[in-house]
């Protein structure tokens, strides 16, 4: 059967993608950001998965206001990097896994989560920046990716509690797939940031680090935190952090297994307008 081997959490700031694409990673402003991912790139090589289930949000790219799905799973064979207004990022096309994606969709919908199934979409920086941070600049991404887009643009976004429960349903779906695939689940976005209004630029490093502590040690309690705390403490766009709870909910300990092993933790301010946070948690073998 397929199984979830690890979860990865990272911010997906668009300026990080631009820094990579324009060869600026060694500049003094960016060097400390990318240094935080040196371990992660090696870890990816040493622990190459068969598939990445990548939780992210679309930023008015594939989804305009015509349709606003709360949870959307990409079931296509491939997904092209989107032109977000600056031209498409020069990164490889994302290869999907229609069989497992369709399997997960069926299982999770039967588990009472009403997913939107997407057979055609481009993917924006929310999905490609995490891949770049973890994999560098390869000719092709190391494995297929199932994009899983969450609405965090128009309120109300799904609650942390619901995201955490959805992660548990995704784990059950993965484990009922017959092929012996090693699957990583990634939760992306955040950490504290606000991109709008006179409060733009808000950063709350203390709250962010407590979020990381709680995500590692007590995600069930963390999942009870209401939206308004994210907005007040971590900025209006800090709400993206609910997506990390989907990945965390898919880990073995949530279903009675052993606690995950913390392989890497990183935090840095700033990348553009945003606090960068990053974790790698492995399920014990």
């Amino acid at each position, binding site marked *: 059967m397929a199984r979830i081997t690890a979860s990865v959490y990272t911010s997906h700031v*668009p*300026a990080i993608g*631009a820094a990579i694409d324009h060869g600026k990673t060694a500049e003094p*402003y960016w060097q400390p950001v990318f240094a935080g991912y040196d371990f992660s790139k090696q870890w990816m090589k040493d622990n190459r998965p068969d598939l990445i289930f990548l939780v992210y949000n679309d*930023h*008015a*790219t594939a989804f*305009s*206001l*015509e349709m606003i799905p709360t949870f959307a799973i990409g079931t296509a064979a491939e997904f092209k990097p989107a*032109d*977000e*207004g*600056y031209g498409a990022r020069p990164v490889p096309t994302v290869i999907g896994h229609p069989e497992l994606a369709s399997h997960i969709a069926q299982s999770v919908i039967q588990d009472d989560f009403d997913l939107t199934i997407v057979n055609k979409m481009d993917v924006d920086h929310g999905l490609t920046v995490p891949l770049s941070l973890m994999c560098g600049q390869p000719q092709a991404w190391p494995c297929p990716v199932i994009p899983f887009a969450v609405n965090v*643009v*128009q*309120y*109300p976004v799904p609650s942390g509690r619901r995201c955490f429960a959805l992660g548990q349903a995704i784990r059950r779906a993965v484990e009922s797939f017959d092929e012996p695939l090693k699957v990583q689940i990634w939760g992306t976005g955040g950490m*504290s940031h*606000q*991109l*709008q*209004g*006179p*409060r*733009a*630029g*808000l*950063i*709350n*490093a203390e*709250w962010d680090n407590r979020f990381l502590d709680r995500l590692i040690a007590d995600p069930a309690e963390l999942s009870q935190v*209401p*939206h*308004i705390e994210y*907005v*007040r*403490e971590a900025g*209006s*766009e800090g709400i993206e952090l609910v997506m990390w709870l989907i990945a965390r909910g898919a880990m073995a300990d949530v279903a009675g297994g052993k606690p995950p092993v913390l392989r890497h933790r990183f935090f840095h*301010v*700033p990348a*553009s*307008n945003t*606090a960068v946070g990053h974790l790698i948690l492995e399920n014990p073998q």
Partner: protein
Amino acid sequence: MALHKPYLDVPGTTIFDAEQSRRGYHLNQFCMSLMKAENRQRFKADERKYLDEWPMTEQQKQAVLARDLNRCMALGGNIYFLAKVGATDGLSFQQMAGSMTGMTEAEYRAMMIAGGRSPEGNRFVGEDGDAQAHRQPQGAAGQKG
């Protein structure tokens, strides 16, 4: 019965909820159209003419022409959609975000490098943080006169 909106007392912040989305539908869809290079060209060639193709309010059109992002947001705009206008102008997200604070680009960038804006005094309307209404505009612009 009124909907529960606990986020209305966060200073300097407009939450893009269903009501704002309804108000800003055409404004945001106009922004979305700038994802296509040919539309960006047509918009740049004659902004007013291009805007008149959309059933937006006059206030919304004026706010776009003035690149007043705070006003655009009050009229239903969402920052991820408005960012398409900024991209058309060749601005970074940091430049766009900074423009809403009254700070210069250099002032805003320096604030971020120094650790960003503190949440202290900026959690609830009525406190005394730098995002509160009585402390706008920020930066040198707010110290003149």
